[in-house]
């Protein structure tokens, strides 16, 4: 049994979410959690879980936490923020973090209802594109052609929905996309969102080395490839004003993103061309919207 040395004690002081959690080595979700919680360290928050990968890390957060069952998105934070309003405590902020399964599959109706009622909290959706914690099963966010344990011959069932824009068209104050490879962009968006009122939504891409099948050291690089190939563009919608926050000078081919990941081994040529066409189309579309009001 080791005991804490001086270095460990300094780490416990500095970090808003302690090390010693049970997420995989190289988990980019753990990096995202650190970036978020260290940015909002000085605020009083109540955290609604579960967090990345069904809560492997957030159990070590230094703040009061509450989590219910899987579809608790939308309703748990609503109750907390309404009770705080009734008690007259507008100095306490509510932060919610859910996975793509909990927020966009089983809890999508509840998330949509909370958005349209403009409930006052900040919702993070940590998108690793499958139900990772229960053993890499396909979710609504899994791209076409991908290997998962429930689609071993490649995902034929669906393309993925554009969740950030769907939530934007609930006319909420703030929607953004972010990822761990662009840390300053991520931190700026969190700082902007935490101080606003109303329903704020940040969609975070967190590449998973265990489920996407790549080396643990390449997590950050993969998130950069996702942005640079146009698969996951970085933008924000601030009270209806659209802004692309990172413009790559030239898009790299989607093939370079796909080659790094073992889960795309079941991708065929036609599906690859579909992905390339979608990425190209979407980045032209976003550049047209840039700087304009979408509502």
């Amino acid at each position, binding site marked *: *049994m*080791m005991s*804490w*040395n001086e*270095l*460990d004690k*300094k*780490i416990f002081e*500095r*970090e808003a*979410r*302690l*090390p*010693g*959690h*049970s*997420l995989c*080595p*190289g*988990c*980019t979700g*753990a*990096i995202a959690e*650190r*970036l978020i919680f260290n940015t909002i360290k000085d605020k009083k928050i109540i955290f609604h879980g579960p967090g990345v990968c069904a809560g492997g890390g957030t*159990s*070590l957060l*230094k*703040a*009061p*936490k*509450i989590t219910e069952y899987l579809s608790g998105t939308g309703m748990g934070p609503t109750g907390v923020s309404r009770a705080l309003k009734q008690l007259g405590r507008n100095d306490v902020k509510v932060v919610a973090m859910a996975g793509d399964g909990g927020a966009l599959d089983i809890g999508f109706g509840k998330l949509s209802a909370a958005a349209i009622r403009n409930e006052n909290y900040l919702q993070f959706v940590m998108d690793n594109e499958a139900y990772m914690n229960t053993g890499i099963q396909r979710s609504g966010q899994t791209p076409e052609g991908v290997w998962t344990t429930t689609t071993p011959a490649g995902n034929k069932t669906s393309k993925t929905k554009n969740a950030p824009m769907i939530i934007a068209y609930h006319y909420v104050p703030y929607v953004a996309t972010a990822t*761990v490879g662009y*840390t300053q962009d991520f931190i700026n968006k969190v700082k902007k969102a935490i101080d606003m009122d109303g329903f704020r939504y940040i969609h975070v891409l967190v590449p998973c080395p265990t489920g996407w099948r790549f*080396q*643990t*050291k*390449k*997590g*950050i*690089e993969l998130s950069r490839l996702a942005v640079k190939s146009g698969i996951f563009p970085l933008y924000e919608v601030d009270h209806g004003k659209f802004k692309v926050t990172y413009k790559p000078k030239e898009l790299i081919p989607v093939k370079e993103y796909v080659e790094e990941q073992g889960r795309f081994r079941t991708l065929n040529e036609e599906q690859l061309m579909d992905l390339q066409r979608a990425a190209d189309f979407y980045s032209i579309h976003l550049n047209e919207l840039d700087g304009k009001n979408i509502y």
Partner: protein
Amino acid sequence: MKTKAPTYREISPACGMSMQSQEVLNVNTTGDIRSEMPVFDQEKCIKCKQCILLCPEGCIMEDDDGKIYASMTFCKGCGICAYECPVKAIEMVLETTEK
């Protein structure tokens, strides 16, 4: 030494969520599972602190002299710090039984 499990009189009916007073955070000594460990070359290091920002555990610290260290209690040996270092000042070496 195995601690005795608590009886029904000792459990507070609030352990499903944080209590208003002390919460117990269970910290695992995750350093036990690693196969590779980072070695820091303090001469090459340019103090950009990307490794501190990007570590998934948060176990890299800068001490008062400006040297960068990783806590071996928690480091899982993922290799992100070494891969992202702009000047390649961190090297991942296999854990050996000799410490």
